[in-house]
């Protein structure tokens, strides 16, 4: 990933900054600049998510490549944040620990790196709450 491409989304990845439509109250992560329901009536503002939620569904990854090769087996989960929106994230826990509905909270982890001399990318993952 290029340095500029990661940096542009840094605040979203570090601090779970998404958006909210103040017209209908819907939350978005990753952030949207336009509300698909309210359209022109919608007013979008930044929103920092609390970082707590629950597992909607998950998959256990046993074979991976690149930055993720050494992490296997690991859990990739769709997480519903308390505010209502859903996102896909690495869930850091023992693979036999995860279940649908499991409460989770955000943590700050390394997402990857561009080789041993390149930039290191950090951001949000989740752990059991």
């Amino acid at each position, binding site marked *: 990933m290029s340095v500029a491409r990661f940096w542009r989304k*840094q605040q979203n990845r570090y*601090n779970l900054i998404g958006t909210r439509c103040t017209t209908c109250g819907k939350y978005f992560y990753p952030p949207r600049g336009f509300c698909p329901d309210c359209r022109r009536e919608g007013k979008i503002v930044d929103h920092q998510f609390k970082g707590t939620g629950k597992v909607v569904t998950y998959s256990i990854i046993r074979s991976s490549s690149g930055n993720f090769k050494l992490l296997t087996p690991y859990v990739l989960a769709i997480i519903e944040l308390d505010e209502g929106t859903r996102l896909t994230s690495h869930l850091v826990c023992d693979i036999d620990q995860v279940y649908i509905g499991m409460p989770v909270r955000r943590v*700050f*982890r390394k997402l990857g790196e561009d080789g041993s001399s390149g930039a*290191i990318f950090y951001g949000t993952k989740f752990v059991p709450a």
Partner: protein
Amino acid sequence: MVGIISYGAYIPRYRIKVEEIARVWGANGTEISRGLGVFEKALPDMDEDTITISVEAARAAMARRVINPADIGAVYVGSESHPYAVKPTAVTVGEAIGATPVMTAADYEFACKAGTAAIQTSMGLVKSGMVTYSVAVGADVAQGEPGDALEYTAAAGGAAMIIGNDDPIAEINHTCSFTTDTPDFWRRENKPYPRHGGRFTGEPAYFKHVIGASKMMLEKMGTKPSDYTYAVFHQPNGKFPVQAASMLGFTMEQIKPGLAVTYLGNTYSGASMVGLSAVLDIAKPGDRIFMTSYGSGSGSDSFDITVTDVINSDLFNRDAAPSVSALLADKKIVDYAVYAKHKGKVVMME
């Protein structure tokens, strides 16, 4: 008065037993454990490093108290294992707690006392009125060469202190330092592991500086060891701090609550500050804390601290972040092979 506004610690979940490390090198684990006074040490997860540990510790401190991140004017991170040689850990911490962009930041390095040096800098900025709050972090994913004595204790973890003037949970009455050029332990540029002077790290290094700074503090404050409720000394192993305490006249009861090393290992720049966090986890208003760090190279920073009523007030919520004992209890023991993978000792194709 300048003091600690909030604090937080972070310890990764993974542990390896000293006996397991000894098994790999054909050494007597029971004897080594007993000799060092250390039974387990913490190691990072595959995606944890000094930056993630620093952020988690700083966020734990922010969780315990309502602090406007915009009022944080400085972030300093002390460590021997900053992930970048050039690019500060402190800016990522600042960004992750929402303190950027109106703040100053820098990384510190002074072996195991870089974290307490960050506290002293923060005190200076706060006392001079240059900033409202300053964050001081001490964190490490400590390095030790495989098979070397350091490998039995070099651990991962850290703590953060938010320093400020208004309503501190603990006032810092005084700080003083004792510093000389003593080559007891070092790591050269581009080298993955530190080297040390073996027994030389004891008498002319750790003890000379810890005792030197501590005596200066007692003299300056006109106090004696029995005036303090707790004492925390840098803890590279379980023996040195106990010996230093006894040389100064502190009792085992005073140092035991802050002696995290036994089941944590030596978190280098995090060591004294994790010990202080463990004490703040249980401290009551009026308790007086004595702390002396030690960093090879060499120097010691001594602190005289008094816990205030604020620690039990509505301004502060100690339970909003995990205590050091809770972090130590949440653990998963791994064998040497998993430890080697987590520490990046398994060589892979790039």
